[in-house]
């Protein structure tokens, strides 16, 4: 494979490319899905192909094929150069700024204790069916869905600068949902082993079966829960919920290509423009947002990005101030950076690399603080767990989030379950109201599968970690007005 990658790069250079890279990617996915007391589907898919990206005539071209053989590779290398010449019809007068990166040669592999693809299908179907039995045994639960998903991506990347790297990443999750139904409505509750770079051991260490009865009971309780209050409340958000809030209001907003307007036509742009770098008060001084493509379990940890840049760790928000972005080699010059942070990824061999969110999370509080202590310190609030509805404007300012489960907090006590809770805020107001973050004992990485960006849309994966955190006086319940 390495020789074929080199061959693609040489073929592109021969056709006139001033820069070229080639990625050969084999992606294997396995999905086991259960519905009620049956296994609904087992699907094993494999994708294999090569993509060649070039700069020629000062412009970009990319072509890809599923036929990974020398003659076809030469054809797509030549085609990529042809396409670059078409791009030159509307190119920047000063061409493409391609930031320097040391030459890399190495192999990255996700540490895996138990290969998920070697675990028997009977073990996987057995687990899902056992969970289903427990969930459906709860009176009032009428529906159960569960699935286990693993993916393994084996990638070879060569660049015309001499980088030649290999990565083999393994990612997986298990998740299930109970739905309770009564005469007036239906409500749900989910539980999961969230997406991680890991093997089957991640599934075994998560109490999926042990929690099943409680999850079913929560779904039934959700039916009878108190309606959402309307007005300003203090919110305590758990890591499983905060992951998506960070993803939408910080992660996407600090992708440098979006900030520069390169995704304006579909995914949108960002309010966090480069003229505000170093000055924008993104949130309270407790807000420290760190990107880390080297972190264990991180879905974006893969050694090198698809620009051939080594994984790094850096702040995008420090003590509440916007200090940096997620960047790629093409755009980092716009903020005066000489080196990319390595955030470019493609979702397959057939896709062009674009800036995708790194593993990005909220640093834990530095003072000892438990979730119980945080609740005890809250007079009138709501505790929100898990993902629900989510929507944000294209500049990442006005957002509205729901959740999976909600409880009122009155005078320091976790009280009755609530339903239909949503909260709405402007991003900087929301993060400005952050006044407490639990300590590192409670910091939890939560993987996101299914982040859409690009045009046509590509799907990426990444991890967002946090500890439970409190936000003061946020507008709640506006959706139901």
């Amino acid at each position, binding site marked *: 494979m390495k020789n074929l990658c080199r061959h693609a790069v040489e073929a592109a250079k021969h056709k006139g490319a001033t820069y070229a890279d080639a990625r050969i990617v084999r992606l294997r996915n396995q999905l086991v899905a259960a519905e009620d007391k*049956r*296994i*609904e589907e*087992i*699907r*094993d*898919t*494999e*994708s*294999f*192909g090569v993509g060649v990206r070039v700069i020629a005539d000062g*412009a*970009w071209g990319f*072509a*890809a*094929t*599923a036929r990974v053989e020398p003659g076809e590779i030469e054809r797509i290398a030549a*085609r990529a150069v042809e*396409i*670059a010449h*078409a*791009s030159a*019809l*509307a*190119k*920047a007068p000063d061409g493409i700024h391609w930031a320097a990166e040391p030459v890399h040669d190495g192999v990255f592999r996700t540490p895996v204790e138990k290969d998920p693809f070697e675990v*028997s*299908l009977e073990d996987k*179907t057995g687990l899902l069916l056992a969970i289903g039995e427990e969930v459906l045994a709860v009176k009032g639960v*009428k529906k159960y869905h569960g699935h286990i998903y693993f993916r393994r991506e084996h990638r070879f990347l060569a660049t015309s600068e001499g980088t030649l790297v290999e990565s083999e990443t393994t990612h997986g999750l298990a998740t299930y949902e109970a*739905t309770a*139904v009564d005469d007036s*409505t*239906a409500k749900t509750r989910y539980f999961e082993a969230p997406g991680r770079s890991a093997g089957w051991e991640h599934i075994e260490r998560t109490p999926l079966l042990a929690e099943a009865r409680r999850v079913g009971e929560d779904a039934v309780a959700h039916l009878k829960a108190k309606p959402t209050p309307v007005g300003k409340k203090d919110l305590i958000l758990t890591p499983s919920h905060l992951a998506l809030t960070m993803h939408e209001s910080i992660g996407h907003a600090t992708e440098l290509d979006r900030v520069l*307007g*390169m995704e*304006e*036509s579909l995914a*949108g742009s960002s*309010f966090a423009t480069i003229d505000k770098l170093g000055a924008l008060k993104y949130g309270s001084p407790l807000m420290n947002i760190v990107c880390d493509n080297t972190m264990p379990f991180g879905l974006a940890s893969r050694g090198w990005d698809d620009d051939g840049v080594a994984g790094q760790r850096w702040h995008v928000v420090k003590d509440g101030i916007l200090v940096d972005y997620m960047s790629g080699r093409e755009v980092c010059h716009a903020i005066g950076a000489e080196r990319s942070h390595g955030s470019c990824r493609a979702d397959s061999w*057939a896709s062009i690399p674009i800036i995708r969110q790194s593993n990005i999370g909220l640093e834990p509080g530095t003072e000892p603080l438990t979730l119980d202590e945080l609740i005890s310190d809250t007079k009138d609030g709501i505790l929100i767990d898990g993902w629900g*509805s*989510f*929507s*944000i*404007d*294209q*500049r990442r*300012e*006005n957002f*509205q989030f729901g959740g999976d489960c909600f409880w009122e907090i009155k005078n320091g006590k976790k009280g009755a379950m609530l339903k239909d809770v*949503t909260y*709405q805020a*402007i991003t900087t107001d929301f993060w400005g109201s952050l006044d407490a973050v639990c300590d590192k004992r409670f910091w939890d990485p939560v993987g996101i599968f299914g982040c859409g960006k690009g*045009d*046509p849309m590509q799907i990426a994966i990444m991890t967002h970690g946090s500890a439970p955190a409190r936000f003061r006086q946020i*507008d709640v319940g*506006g*959706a*139901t007005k």
Partner: protein
Amino acid sequence: MNESQAQSILQKILDASNAEAVVATLNGGMSATTRLADNLITQNFESSRAVLTVSCAYGQSHGTASTEDLGDESIKAVVEAAQAIAKSMPPDPEYMPPVEAGETAKYAKVDGYFDQTAGFGPQEKGAQLAVAAKSVAGKGYRLSGAYTSGDEFLAIANSAGLKAYHRSTQGEVHLTAIGNNGSGWAEKISENTDEIDVAAVADEALRIAELAQDPADLDAGKYTLIMQPAAVSELLMFFIWMGFDAKAADEGHNFLRGKLGQKIAPETITIRSDPAEPNCLGEPFQRDGLASRTISWVDEGALANMIYSRFWAKKQAKAPTGHPANIIMDGGTATLDEMVASTERGLLVTHFWYIRTVDPMRPLLTGMTRDGLFLIESGRIVGAVKHMRFNENPLDMLGRVEAMGPPQRTGEWMPMLVPALKVRDFNFTSTTKF
């Protein structure tokens, strides 16, 4: 890939498998996109792929495997993988045997393949976009967008003797014109790239952008809202997706439970599918070989049909519908100008962004306006206003439609032919900063 090449590969699957039932599909094609940002071509890519998917069954146990390697060794391996999965799977009480060969007689005649689209190259595409960008730049605006074209094929063969093949072409351009303080957007979708006038799309995006500059503050609240067809399609897609699954309704967990056959909207509302609709072609058959249906979902306000899988149809003694090949909402004759002229106070929106379900049972959707929100007073547009978030019940909204335009081709995720709508009391709940 032509029909003969595709069926030759699928026959190898049928020959190689010892399963009691086999369904093999091969789908793929070529897709090419040129992306524009700030008047420059920033990305330009092309890929070809074909995915071979094999489903095998022994009794009621079934398994599926797929590959993109179409070599003989890979074909053998993917059959063995699907068979091994099937043998590991507990019997599935909802398993359905392959669709019978006679189903092909029900396929609509759909001819949506244009050689000029399949051969539409990056030079011609780039040249059209470059001219449009230069024109927009000359007016002091920036043009961003994407032009995607290509071809697709879907071939199927199963152990019940069904064989089918369909191919089509697609062209789609959407452009955003961006000024210092406001943007406009327009699109054109056609199977035939000769029908796509990039300059006209850019002009429309620019026209909206010029109107959209320097939006004023306006309080959120209930407004009469005129939605362009793209905005209607985005709401309608979520409406169908949330509510029309018959199994979920019969089990009590979607908002149309118990409503089949009942009136759910005024008589002016008809929503249907027709794969042969010339202005909005759909695929004539589905991945399992079932014919795509010409069917009404909402017929003059009555919930006429829901989406029935083959299993659920059999259980409930209904006809299977499969999934909609396209969504068509019958319209009216009102022009956009007439809708504006008849509005005392209201808003006009270009399209929506980030629509999501808030409550699937009520039902309730949220989302943002995008690329042009305009205030109408005394029958004319008086200026742009800052974008707003809505929280709206799409079923209830159908009862508040006051005027409809002629249907237009749109649809980000599936072919849709829908009209502009004028709706009273559309519920905006908050505003944003631009």
